[in-house]
């Protein structure tokens, strides 16, 4: 009997407890979250009037560690505001149409603890009204919050955020052009010797003596990569030398457009050297766009033909070491040039000479010996001076400003004072020259 009673009580208690707990939890979850506050919008500066930034203060219920979360996400709505139709009409039918035309539409659902959103689907000059709601458990939404007034994205014809960038582009490009002009008018510029470039003639000479070919690899990128263009300009000089020495030059390429460009270049070089009849278009050929397929083919060729000189000039990736080590194993003199910082160590280790970064770009000017090309190198130097001065100034300002802050915090002044000159300079540098608008 006692046992039977116990079972009955238990059977009654379970649903009862379930009912009580669930109704309590329902009572807790049933509350919609508090709405976010201080909802505001700003036109994104320096754009074509296509974006508006929205900011808000998180809902008081959107707390860091509450479980279950009272706010799951925010929903942002937008509608266009038409000035003429906004006037309330007495005709109920018309009013309904207006409401239908300018209905709020969901444009984004940022997650909890997020307090900004960029609407980049705007049209310039159109006023938009935004609304935000916090969404809690069971899809319950807070009361909506709207902007106080519509916001308009405006089109800017000049991205003022990039003013400093424009100044530096103007200064550096201007100086390159200026020095080229000076060289054209007869100013002579002195350029230091680059060992790797001096070695090109020797390498071709050696190949001729040994009766073996020269191999020129113009990198694995297409002609839209400036490194490939720089490589092709060096190819022009190498081809002139091979034409002079009557050595064979082979150029396997990994891009079709590079093949056609290289053919034109080598043909012109042979013409300039007075040996157009020795130019053979089939020595410049396409293999494959696929990186390692290309490498397999070129290294296979190296092992079979044993070229006496290998030149690697262009953009390279992981294949650099495979190419250079194979070249080394067949005893070729190797000269490499690239602006890929990641591959430079491999070329330095495995090749006889390496043109590092800017040396590679300077090579065509150096090899051609044309004064106006040498002028462009001086322009580059001027750019370095500007860069150096900026770096130095930035470092000094930052260092002094950090000393100043340390000194201030040492004094433990609780009063908030205006930023000092150095602090303002630091902020200006960060926001305008180093920031998004700058570089």
């Amino acid at each position, binding site marked *: 009997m006692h046992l039977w009673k116990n079972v009955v009580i238990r059977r009654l208690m379970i649903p009862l407890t379930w009912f009580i707990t669930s109704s309590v939890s329902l009572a807790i979850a049933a509350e919609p979250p508090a709405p976010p506050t201080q909802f505001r919008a700003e036109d994104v500066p320096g754009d074509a009037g296509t974006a508006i930034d929205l900011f808000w203060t998180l809902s008081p219920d959107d707390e860091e560690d509450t479980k279950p979360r009272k706010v799951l996400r925010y929903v942002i709505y937008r509608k266009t505001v038409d000035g003429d139709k906004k006037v309330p009409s007495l005709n109920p039918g018309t009013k309904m149409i207006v409401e239908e035309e300018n209905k709020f539409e969901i444009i*984004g659902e940022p997650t909890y603890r997020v307090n900004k959103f960029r609407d*980049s*689907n705007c049209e310039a000059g159109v006023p938009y009204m935004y609304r935000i709601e916090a969404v809690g458990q069971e899809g319950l939404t807070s009361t909506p919050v709207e902007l106080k007034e519509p916001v308009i994205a405006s089109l800017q014809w000049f991205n003022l955020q990039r003013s400093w960038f424009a100044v530096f582009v103007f200064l550096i490009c201007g100086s390159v052009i200026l020095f080229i002009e000076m060289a054209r008018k007869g100013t002579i510029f002195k350029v230091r010797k680059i060992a790797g470039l001096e070695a090109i003639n020797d390498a071709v000479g050696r190949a001729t003596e040994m009766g073996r070919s020269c191999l020129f690899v113009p990198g694995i990128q297409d002609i839209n990569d400036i490194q490939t263009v720089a490589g092709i300009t060096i190819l022009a000089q190498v081809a002139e030398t091979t034409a002079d020495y009557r050595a064979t030059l082979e150029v396997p390429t990994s891009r079709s457009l590079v093949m056609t460009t290289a053919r034109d270049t080598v043909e012109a070089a042979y013409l300039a050297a007075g040996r157009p009849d020795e130019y053979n278009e089939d020595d410049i050929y396409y293999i494959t766009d696929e990186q390692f397929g290309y490498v397999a083919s070129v290294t296979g060729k190296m092992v079979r033909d044993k070229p006496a000189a290998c030149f690697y000039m262009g953009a390279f990736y992981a294949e650099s070491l495979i190419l250079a080590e194979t070249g080394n194993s067949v005893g070729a003199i190797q000269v490499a040039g690239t602006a890929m910082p990641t591959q430079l160590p491999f070329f330095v280790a495995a090749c006889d000479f390496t043109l590092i970064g800017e040396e590679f770009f300077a090579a065509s000017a150096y090899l051609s010996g044309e004064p106006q090309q040498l002028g462009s190198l001086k322009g580059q130097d001027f750019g370095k001076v500007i860069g150096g001065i900026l770096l130095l100034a930035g470092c000094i300002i930052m260092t002094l400003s950090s000393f100043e802050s340390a000194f201030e915090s040492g004094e433990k002044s609780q009063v908030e004072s205006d930023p000092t000159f150095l602090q303002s300079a630091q902020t200006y540098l960060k926001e305008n020259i180093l920031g*998004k608008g700058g570089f």
Partner: protein
Amino acid sequence: MLKILQTLDRRWIFLAMFLAVAIPLIMGMTFPEKTSDQVMAVFNAVENLPDGSNVVMALDYDPASEGELQPMASAFTRHCALKKHNIYFMTLWPQGGPMIQRSTDLLENDYPETYKGKYGSKYVNLGFRAGNEGVIKLVVEDLKKSYDTDVQGTNLNDIPLTKNLKNIQQVDLLCNVSAGYPGSKEWVLYGSAPFDIPTVIGCTGVQAPIMLPYIPQQLTGMLAAIKGAAEYEQAIINRYPELNDNPAAKEGLKRMGPQLVAHVLLIGLIALGNVIYFWERKQGTA
């Protein structure tokens, strides 16, 4: 002896390297990893996001570099799965499609309760688009200008995850795993830096030095090579200890054994090379 070494056929060196990699790999040697600050920054970037956040997973690599990068991609995917994030997969490499497949398989097989049959609502595969950095420029401004359909040809407006996604500025995190061009550098230059998209990357060891200058301003953190992957896996295991028994969660850690022996061999070879060099110099031949 030194004379033999002087004319040593390099195939012996190749054989030594083969053994240095193969033996620890077969034996399955693993070592504990201490997570560095840089890797913790990556871990926290994923971990501190609210559950169910939106993450773009840009996997820009190919089978060649899969050995080095797949552990990272898997670790990123696994960590996002543990956090129940919504994942958008995409690639700028034509060979990247099957790489994405490996990650989506991981989602479906290892985390079926969150992702099984939830294609479109929990993850989406946008697939490959040609155009290198041009694609990045488009997806950060207007996703649907570049991708109008997903990999299966479904219109993005018909997929719940992409219906309201105007561009990837709206996502909470961008994870990029890349083996070269186009890859991490392009994502930073055209994606994360100009638009302040929080970004973490995983890249090959060779690429790491060029990405270092972007930390911490343009990049939140970086996993460099297998070491980075192994540390990240360790961080995930420390936080979710149930993974300790899952060998698939230790792909990077497993690769650290061969790396240790290979590095020691390299040091040995460098030392040997120098012994030969100094001996030659003494003999007056160098």
